């Protein structure tokens, strides 16, 4: 990575206007999930934490009429290949959209628009607005916390951090062996695992590992980045708030468009603003104001309707 790219770490990348047809180049099993790649012939390299709206060219809106809308996926890895960009997406078949994407074969067409949304910010820029006096997190202290399918954007973020010379500790949690994909995307030794069934690493939650890390002397200078199921994200948010550690959470909500048009992906903002004023109930659109948000920007990570 060049110095120029390092300076751009964590900055939002603007998408080309409109959707474009890409070709799927592979689809591989990954620990109970699938990981598929598409070659984006024109698009820019996304920032980590950004997402794409995806729809298969065929078999979308078919006899059953679903899936109909495109589905939002954060990008797990992205690399320049020739004149285009290879995009990797981690998918778990849970509904009609994810099932169709999980069965994509090499050579099939994939409609996408993106990269969209607000990415993870560089560690020295993750300030908690409620505590403006807190020194910005030390650049040495990125802690990545991933759960299940939510490990995807953290894989790209870890690579970008390392390219920028910023060390990152990685904590990953999985329910069981059948839901443990994406580990290979990390390819490093600085990684600690947890599983609810104890098949690997610590038996329990990944947030148990985070709680231990946050007891350390250097914890207050860390920036925590998390993506995973809502209950995990809420536990991370509460842990970090209690320890005074800045954190960013990559959330999800039902989303129709991905670019602020439908107002469907609203989640409640924290009612306390940066000046400690109660601003009443307001919402943010996760697609343009997120999907990555600071812990202090929201009331709760338990987003109604997520996980569908």
């Amino acid at each position, binding site marked *: 990575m060049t110095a120029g790219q390092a300076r751009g770490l964590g900055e939002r990348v*603007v*998408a*080309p*206007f*409109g*959707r474009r047809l890409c070709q799927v180049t592979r689809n591989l099993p990954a620990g109970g999930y699938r990981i598929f790649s598409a070659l984006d012939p024109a698009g820019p390299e996304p920032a980590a934490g950004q997402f794409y709206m995806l*729809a298969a060219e065929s078999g979308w*809106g078919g006899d*059953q*009429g*679903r*899936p*109909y*809308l*495109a589905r939002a996926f954060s990008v797990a890895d992205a690399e320049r290949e020739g004149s285009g960009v290879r995009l990797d997406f981690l998918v778990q078949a849970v509904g009609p959209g994810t099932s169709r994407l999980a069965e994509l074969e090499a050579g099939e067409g994939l*409609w996408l*628009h993106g990269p*969209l*949304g607000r990415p993870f910010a560089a560690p020295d820029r993750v300030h908690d607005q409620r505590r403006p006096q807190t020194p910005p997190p030390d650049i040495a202290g990125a802690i990545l916390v991933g759960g299940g399918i939510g490990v995807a954007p953290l894989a790209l973020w870890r690579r970008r951090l390392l390219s920028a010379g910023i060390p990152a500790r990685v904590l990953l949690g999985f329910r069981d062996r059948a839901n443990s994909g994406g580990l290979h995307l990390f390819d490093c030794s600085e990684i600690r695992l947890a599983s609810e069934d104890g098949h690997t690493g610590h038996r329990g939650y990944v947030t148990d590992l985070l709680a231990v890390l946050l007891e350390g002397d250097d914890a207050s200078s860390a920036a925590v980045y998390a993506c995973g199921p809502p209950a995990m994200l809420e536990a991370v948010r509460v842990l970090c708030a209690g320890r005074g550690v800045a954190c960013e959470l990559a959330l999800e*909500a*039902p*989303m*129709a*468009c*991905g*670019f*602020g*048009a*439908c*107002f*469907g*992906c*609203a*989640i*409640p903002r924290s009612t306390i603003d940066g000046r400690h004023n109660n601003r*009443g*109930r*307001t*919402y943010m*659109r996760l697609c*343009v104001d997120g999907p990555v948000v600071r812990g202090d920007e929201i009331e709760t990570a338990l*987003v*109604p*309707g997520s996980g569908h």
Partner: protein
Amino acid sequence: MIDFCGIELRHAVINGSGTFDAIAARRAFGDELLREFPFSAFVSKTITPEPRAGNPPPRLWETPSGLINSIGLPNKGLDGFLDHDLPQLTELPVPLIVSVMGTSHEEFVRLVEGVAGRDEVAAIELNVSCPNVKSGLIVGESPEEARSLLERVRPLTGKPLIVKLTPNVADPIPVALAAEAGGADAVSLINTLRATAIDPGSGERWLGGGTGGLSGPAVRAVALAHVGAVSAAISVPLVAMGGISSGRDAAEMVSAGARIVAIGTESFRDPAAGSRIAAELGGEVARISG
């Protein structure tokens, strides 16, 4: 060029109110949005006199070939719109139509006067899908309410007034006739069909707002019937919308009597759908007339 109520449009495809936020889209797509702007006029999200936060989530539910939304008209209010949004919308390369909704004649008067006084605004769309708090009747479902509202706001401006008609009536013609008699320059239809969804896990209502409106190809046949019926009954131009996702769909609306068409849910699937459908519609018109 197409003439719509005296406004010159480059092509026949605009957006439905509340289905495209040009300010947010510019954040996502940058200035390429302005160069490739997909619509020949831009219709704002509905503004109300005071700011609204909108409905609690979840707000969306996908149906076969459709989408139920329960958004709740979040907006900055009239003053917030005029101060923050209007200057940015003025940078768009197309005429601006502002959608407004009030719950009384007084609120509609305030909105129409506030918006019509701005040179940047080419036309005003009246969203009449909410109750008049005095009568409790939904304006768009009552010919008497629709006519008295139009007669109240018509003298306030010489700019075109478009009335957005609801499909949630047994017969759309009486309200369309009332809007025309009250001085409307055009009608737009259809708004969404009232709909709801059940959470399969809990058996409870899924949407935070309880009920919502259905859009997408699932409603297109209904929209086509309403457009055909209304266009046969009135003489002012129609903006047709409801599930249009191709030039052929748009051409069918034109055949049914529409002057121009609007795209909504299809833009969610493809942000540039308006441009594609406008190009396809040109081909369809050539094919039919050829």
